[in-house]
């Protein structure tokens, strides 16, 4: 369910690091909690983000949730699919509906995040 090569935050974001670039998304657990997603608010390419700070938000009809940056760096790309089809985030949160790509400024930060097993246990405990 939760890809082994991802790393996870307590706020239900994931990041996949490849060659200094982190692809960031929200987890399947998060999209389930949010319900039908209607809008995604993302930063512009070039924006700086700081680990633990909000980089945007995800909206359902009745709720808004901040997306917290799992790592610090500069936004290089945002997913063009989500502007017209926010529902993709419900359908494929770990794949086609990634949110942003970040050029890492402090690669060491990734070590402090949870593994898939840890995250699984974490959400199991939350229930």
């Amino acid at each position, binding site marked *: 369910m939760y890809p082994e090569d991802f790393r996870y935050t307590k706020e239900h974001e994931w990041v996949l690091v490849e060659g200094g670039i982190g692809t960031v998304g929200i987890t399947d657990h998060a999209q389930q909690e949010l319900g039908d997603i*209607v*809008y995604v608010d993302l930063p512009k390419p070039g924006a700086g983000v700081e680990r633990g700070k909000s980089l945007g938000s995800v*909206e*359902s*009809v*009745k*709720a*808004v949730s901040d997306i917290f940056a799992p790592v610090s760096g500069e936004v290089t790309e945002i997913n063009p699919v989500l502007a017209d089809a926010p529902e993709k985030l419900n359908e494929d949160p770990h794949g086609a509906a990634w949110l942003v790509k970040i050029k890492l400024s402090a690669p060491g930060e990734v070590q402090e995040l949870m593994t898939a097993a840890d995250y699984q246990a974490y959400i199991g405990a939350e229930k």
Partner: protein
Amino acid sequence: MRYLPKSDSERRQMLDACAVASAEDLFAHLPESVRLRRPLELAPGISEYEIVDYFRARAADGANGYASFLGAGVYRHFRPVLVDTVVSRGEFLTSYTPYQAEISQGTLAAIFEFQTMICQLTGMDVANASMYDGSTAVPEAAMMAARITSRHRVLAARSVHPEYREVLGTYARHQGMTVEEFGYAQGTGAIDGEDLESKTDDQTAAVIVQSPNFFGVIDDVKAAAEIAHRRGALLIVLFTEAVSLGILEPPQEADIVAGELQSFAISPSYGGPYAGIIATREKFVRQMPGRLVGQTVDTHGNRAFCLTLSTREQHIRREKATSNICTNQALIALMATVFMTVYGKLGLRELALQNAAKAHYLAGTLRPAFAGKFFNEFVVRCGNPEAANRALLKKKIIGGLPLGRFYPELADAMLVCATEMTRRAEMDELSQTLRAAATAEVLA
């Protein structure tokens, strides 16, 4: 008491069901220190007839039977009888905010029509379901511009309604927004483009102009737009006399239109309640404050309406909301909707033309202080406006608004307004009296 639909025996039954000995016991858990242990010092309740008598006596102190030339943001217009017929229906009057769409389709459909008509009237893409009034729509529009541009300076024309500028100041102060004013041209009464140019920079979030402006002059929106946009600022255009949009070109150059709808069958009612609007371009919709009604379908595919984009609002976003506003002036907006329906495409134009005709007739007998084109209001210099108004009151005429209280440089002038309700005889009387007062001044 006639609004309390329980008999004493029913109260007794209910208390018994709750195993409570007396009604007073319901409050026994409150700390004694907070209890009010004396009756409220208010007279006992009175009958309907006495209530009507009380308010009739208060109304008798009013301006009944007086002609009036006051405008200045609140206008006398005929109120089609259908307006009160519709808003007096209990289904509209006593219904709640339409959060439960299935049993509020009446309110929702009417607001959807309202939003549409405001777009048609203003030339904008999207309009909200109304703000408290025009004066608070201005700071809401300014805050919207600040959010969109991430800038914090706002420039407001001095020819924007003075009380609206005061309200803008009250809100801006706490938003880290600075408000600066720019002047008007002495000759035309329209904005001073050079002054605006000199004050606009790349920290300006918005330029705010009013048209027709407080002096009644149709303002130079294009000039303001050119200056604002060149510096990356948004243009906010305000109107206080909605009837003007029946004949005047709406402000196509505006990024945000803010306005007051009181002219559309909303009683002057000593200052409120009124209804403001904010209308804007599609791309800014998520930054708009206030309620929005959207079209959708139900499970059978029938067209239906519901409140939407609620995540902008206070009840969801709380401290990150686009505004703290909760209400929309639904019933007032409905009055405006019925008004717009009754007059319609051609009627509103004819109404506006009548206003222009009356005011231009009046202007022909007096001399407007400003050369700029005007709609139904203009400024007249008359020596001592307060004295002139005293003379007019003796004839049961309320003259124009003496401007000295807002514009010291115009202390010798008054702002007069004529609408479709103003009679020729009243205008002739006004002119005559003003001329006589001016002459008396000269002779004195």
